């Protein structure tokens, strides 16, 4: 029995953070705990099922969705450092499922949040977890699902301002897709590369030293293209920046 009044948050790690960049998940935990939440991590979680779902593999995604529901439906809040995974749970699980499972999906959707919107809209975090050094100019890529499925636009900007004291240097077309799109980036690599180049060109034009955003898929795509093209811009997840974790290599950078 839990007698704490602290918000109880179940962390949806996201498979990309789990596999590629654990620092995003650790930063998320730090931020949530700093905001007064008690964070738990259901260790049996895997992936929200987006790769298959977006490719139209509905039947095989259903068991994945059901497992996620079973694993998280007893939480008070579910928070993910990703707009697309949160959007998948909030908008697409109810579409994918029927009957009782749809009801359960809708109930889970009610308490599922993307990290920056949870911090601003629910727990209203306004003090920094670390004492950040002066950040270099940074620009923000608005990932599509977070922006259009969950309305995340001002939240990360507001947090960067209030926690890190930095105003985002806005790039042109910050809300246009970077070309990731899940399996799209592998199915149509040339078009995807062109879109990533547009993103990098717009980001570079701001002279920002860091490109940040709320979704690792986009960031891996943008960083991967920047490395291939030899462009010098650091790509980091917004959770890392907000939690003051700027010491390790940026995405795709070598150590040391």
């Amino acid at each position, binding site marked *: 029995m839990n007698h704490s009044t602290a918000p109880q948050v179940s962390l949806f790690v996201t498979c990309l953070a789990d*596999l590629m960049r654990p620092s995003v998940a650790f930063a998320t935990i730090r931020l949530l705990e700093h905001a007064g939440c008690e964070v738990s991590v259901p260790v049996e979680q895997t992936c929200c099922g987006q790769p298959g779902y977006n490719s139209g593999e509905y039947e095989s995604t259903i068991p994945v969705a059901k497992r996620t529901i079973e694993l998280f439906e007893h939480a008070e809040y579910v928070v993910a450092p990703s707009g697309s995974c949160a959007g998948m749970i909030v908008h697409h699980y109810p579409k994918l499922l029927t009957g009782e499972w749809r009801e359960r999906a809708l109930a889970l959707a009610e308490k599922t949040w993307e990290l920056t919107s949870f911090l601003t809209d629910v727990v209203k975090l306004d003090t920094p977890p670390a004492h950040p050094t002066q950040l270099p100019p940074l620009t923000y890529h608005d990932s*599509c699902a977070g922006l259009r499925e969950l309305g995340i636009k001002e939240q990360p900007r507001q947090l960067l301002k209030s926690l890190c004291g930095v105003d985002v240097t806005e790039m042109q077309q910050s809300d246009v897709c970077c070309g*990731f799109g899940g399996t799209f980036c592998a199915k149509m690599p040339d078009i995807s590369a062109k879109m990533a180049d547009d993103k990098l060109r717009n980001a570079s034009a701001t002279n920002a030293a860091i490109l940040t955003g709320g979704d690792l898929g986009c960031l891996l795509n943008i960083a991967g293209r920047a490395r291939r093209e030899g462009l010098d811009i650091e790509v980091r997840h917004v959770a890392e920046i907000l939690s003051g974790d700027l010491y390790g290599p940026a995405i795709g950078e070598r150590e040391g």
Partner: protein
Amino acid sequence: MEQHSDQFYALSEDALEKTEQVKRRDMLGLFMPLLRDAAMDELGEFEALRQHNKRIRQHTLDNLDYYLARFELEATNNGNQVHFADTGAELNSIVLDICQQHSARLVAKGKSMVTEETGLNDYLQRGGLDVVETDLGEYIIQLAGETPSHIVGPALHKSQSDIRDLFFDKHPLGERELEDIPALVSEARQMLRETFLKADVGIIGSNALIAETGYSMLVTNEGNGDLCANLPSILIVCTTLDRILPRGEDAAAVQRLLVRSATGQPQTCYTSFYSGPRREGDTDGPLETHFVLLDNKRSDILASDYKEMLQCIRCGACLNHCPIFTSVGGHSYGAVYTGPMGSVLTPLLSSLEEAEALPNACTSCGRCAEVCPSDIPLPDLLRDLRHEQSQQKITPRSWRGGLRLHAFLAARPTLYRFFVDLGVGVMARLGKKKGVFKRLPLASGWTQVRDFPAPQGDTFMKQYKARSRGDE
């Protein structure tokens, strides 16, 4: 129009190599959304109006038989002849018959995507007629022997110098230089005036058919549609049966959204309603008027899960906002309708096999749905098409297999954990020095154009479990 959507991959690669055209499309992709956004901000009631528009269109589609019958009755009472065509071939032959009955030789055409869909120009030309497109963009691509690249701006892919070269090649210009845009426009206008005056038959499309009055509505910026409709003695309106709306005010509501979504204008220069042939005492207007209403699989779409696609009002906003359309241009789609709306329509009008690439030419970014004035859930419809492709085994077996294996493991945490911990551990060690992989087996689509960032170290779960154990 000849369909070659199966060449999307090759056509889009070619398109990306033409750097001048890429730059021009980038500019369009930047400015068209700005124009549209400014117009919507000024309107201030986009969401309410689009929900209104959506409800009207859904109501009409749900009662299409009633409204079609009403339209036919009213239009016939106004003195029009109404024809129904099941297929594109049927529309073409109805139109040719009408032309031949009047021994027509020259046809002046307004812009009509429906007649692009049926390949009407070629058919009439094979039937011995001269057909001249009179919309400036359509005129340009007709001279160039091309197809429209955009449903609203058919020649948006051409530069000023392309058009100048074309006129030099095709027109008797003498000493004239055509140095600027007004000179080019004036040149086309001179040529087209002769067509308007000489044409025996005018053919136009329609943005809306109004059931209660039997009228059709057409919006243009050049007024060429009105000249096609009023100067020749015979007028033929070619459109699809889903263009129908109950009342005049519904057409006006559509018009308010259509124009702002398309070009950012509050109005086009000309919005015309056509009622029928010249009446006694009228000084001008056609002597005989026809409506040809094409089905061409719209009834099938209406009965399918893709019914919402018929709410489309052909504004082109989804094209202008689609980063894939603006990257590769309309011609890469190999079909009449392009961009997101085309990627839904083309497979439904042709086949899922032939148009295999189109539903996949989408990152589900949702920008198309955000701006759609009819609130069509385009990304959902595109995903549903991918679902059908997978079910019908049109999707490559390796993709289906890979994604199903991923889902199989994702639903089995112990197995999933075993594989990812192992894989990530190995990759992290191999990639540590460089930070990225230049090439990766099983990820060639990714590494063809990008480096693959190496994992930071062990998976989060492995590290988290170790820390939790340490804490105890």
